């Protein structure tokens, strides 16, 4: 077999196999259980949504145990599967709650490069200023080119004050300074934006640890929320991200961005199962308004393709 022909056949095969799956599940029953092929198709749907092989096979196994009605429609089967996933996700759907007793309520955003931290800070600022709260943004990303300018645009858009330092300055000192300033000028919500960092970089994670330590020096309870911003296009590496960031910072929950794209963010199910880590909200676009509450059931439906199929 020549390599040419194999590769070209592979390529042709790819478009075929992905279209087969979007046709949805044809629930074929053997007795009153789903047949092996149907189970496999469902499992593959889950894998394609990034749930990962072990989570997908676990759900498929549960599905294979289930006894359905004689003439069950595929929609019914998908609903059942949605229910299974919702059960995993429901407990972790917890919105960010503003605490007026904290002056200020400090929210720290962390995550790998380009995941959407700065944009999410802008979106959160919008939610608070809309409710009439005084908001401050701290540009603790002192590394990336134009990180400060980017946050300043968000400050303007949302009528929030921006505290910044020059590029290369110490991020922890900036965070410290921002808290002092926020305390003295009656800021109610302080959002601290940090530089993107890959979780396997020791020096950058040490910097984050230091930021947290310095914040705690002023207020041992702070940061009141520490949000890990996760890109929905991320695959199984999200598991390592959560694991490592949790070790370094007191992560209180996730915000999952870019769910307006074609990626489904199914790794959340694996994360929910493994870490029971709360999901606070989802990002669905690039404007200030594009932050929505995380709805377990809706999310589960989109993973199995129920919201468009049938």
């Amino acid at each position, binding site marked *: 077999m020549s390599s040419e022909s194999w590769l070209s056949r*592979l390529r042709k095969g790819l478009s075929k196999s992905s279209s087969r799956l979007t046709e949805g599940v044809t629930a074929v029953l053997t007795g009153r259980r789903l047949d092996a092929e149907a189970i496999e198709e469902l499992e593959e749907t889950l894998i394609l949504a990034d749930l990962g092989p072990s989570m997908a096979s676990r759900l498929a196994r549960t599905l294979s145990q289930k006894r359905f009605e004689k003439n069950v429609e595929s929609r019914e089967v998908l609903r059942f599967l949605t229910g299974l996933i919702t059960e995993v996700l429901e407990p972790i759907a917890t919105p960010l709650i503003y605490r007026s007793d904290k002056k200020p309520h400090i929210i720290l955003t962390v995550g790998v490069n380009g995941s959407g931290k700065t944009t999410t800070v802008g979106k959160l600022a919008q939610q608070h200023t809309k409710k009439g709260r005084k908001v401050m943004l701290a540009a603790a990303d002192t590394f990336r*080119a134009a990180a400060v300018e980017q946050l*300043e645009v968000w400050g303007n858009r949302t009528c929030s004050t921006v505290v910044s330092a020059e590029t290369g300055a110490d991020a922890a000192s900036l965070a410290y300074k921002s808290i002092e300033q926020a305390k003295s000028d009656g800021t109610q919500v302080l959002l601290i934006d940090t530089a993107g960092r890959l*979780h396997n970089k020791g020096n950058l994670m*040490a910097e984050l640890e230091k930021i947290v330590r310095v914040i705690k020096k002023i207020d041992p309870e702070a940061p009141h929320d520490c949000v890990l911003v996760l890109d929905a*296009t991320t695959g199984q*590496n999200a598991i390592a991200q959560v694991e490592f960031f949790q070790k370094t910072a007191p992560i209180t929950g996730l915000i999952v961005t870019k769910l307006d*794209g*074609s990626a489904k963010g199914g790794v959340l199910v694996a994360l929910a199962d493994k870490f029971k880590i709360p999901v606070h909200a989802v990002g669905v676009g690039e404007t200030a308004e594009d932050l929505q509450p995380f709805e377990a059931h809706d999310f589960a439906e989109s993973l199995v393709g129920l919201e468009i199929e049938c």
Partner: protein
Amino acid sequence: MFDSLSGRLNEVFEGLKRRGTLKENDVDLALRDVRIALLEADVALPVARDLIKKVKSEAVGEKVLKSVTPGQMVIKVVHDALVEILGSDDIKLQIPLNPPGAYLMVGLQGSGKTTTSAKISQYLIEKENQKVLMASLDVARPAAQEQLKILGEQAGITTLPIIEGQPPIEITKRAMQAGSLGGYDAVMLDTAGRLAIDEALMAELAAIYAQVKPIETLLIADAMTGQDAVNTAEQFKQRLDLTGIILTRVDGDSRGGAALSMRATTGCPIKLIGTGEKLDAIENFHPERIAGRILGMGDVVSLVERVNESVEEEEAERLAAKAKKGQMDFNDMADQLRQVTNMGGLSGLMGMLPGVGKMKKQMTEANVDEKMILHQQAIIQSMTSRERLKPKLIQASRKRRIAAGSGTTVQEVNKLLKQLTTLNKMMKKMGKMGNKGLSRHGLSGLGMPGFPPGFGGV
């Protein structure tokens, strides 16, 4: 991952060999482990499925059954298939024949387009002797144009002056004009991030493409991408004639299955990889390395290459012998730190060793990293030669003296002392892994136990 994968496969095949017959079902069972490994590495499902099919036909053959280590043989078959899909190395960037030639950088939001624009520009200037103009067509993201401008200033690369409110198509026109008038060889066009399903923005990109007819249209994609890599790459490919893919954040610890998925669906070569945030963190793509990484085998080839480049064989042997016994002193540590800095950092080095994923985690936790290395070197320099040979001598007052001498703190000195202990422990463990030891191929001997020599090599 690799160790456990090959271990499991060996078990399965051992059982089969004893029975003497090989049924299709048995092979399927064994290949299920391979499939899981691929999916955990984010290889797209359709790609994984077809790969398994191909491997199966080869795995049933004599070669595997007769092999002493059939599990590893199967992995070799998989590995070779991965390398085949990933394509050959050294696919260079096109250099403009009729200047100015345009380079169009496209991709999803946050994938690394702006950073990579500056990286490639610098590469073209330094390695290809080109005169490069950079322009940002991103009017969507806040401060996107400033970002490229600042990167240009940092690296001494000219950027097109920013005119507020000008739409992308107009900026493109202006950039190409400035490119011709200024005698530039190349015009680097950084575009706004966009979703492949965003019809309006994809149409805009197609219009820009038609306008400049780029010599390179590069999809910038994150190495951490999951199953969606296939959709995204396919859709960008449909709208634009992509000439290549650049994979970013390869310095992370993702297994990088997205590389395989995108290469397989689009047929576009992976031209370069991004390995850090700094502008010189861009490297050539080597299929064997990503293939090894997808299978969790570690980057054996890179390791051998880099080790050969920067470590004298004899010195390595001496160090290795000591390391294996866990008897390194601060002289050795200083040597090692120096070599490690030459090899691109300790974490980089650890990541290339097969089977040390866990230790790499420990290293990360122990904060063994580049900046730290500088501090550590300073601390060691402040020690007396006796202290270097006998770390146990270093007690309270000596610690204070060393800290003061190196401009660090006693805590840092303590940490380094502890690290030497940890390192010795780890090295002892690692020494046990390699049955041939470190001597024959330098550090590469640490590699895969009992593995056919040359496997994974070029």
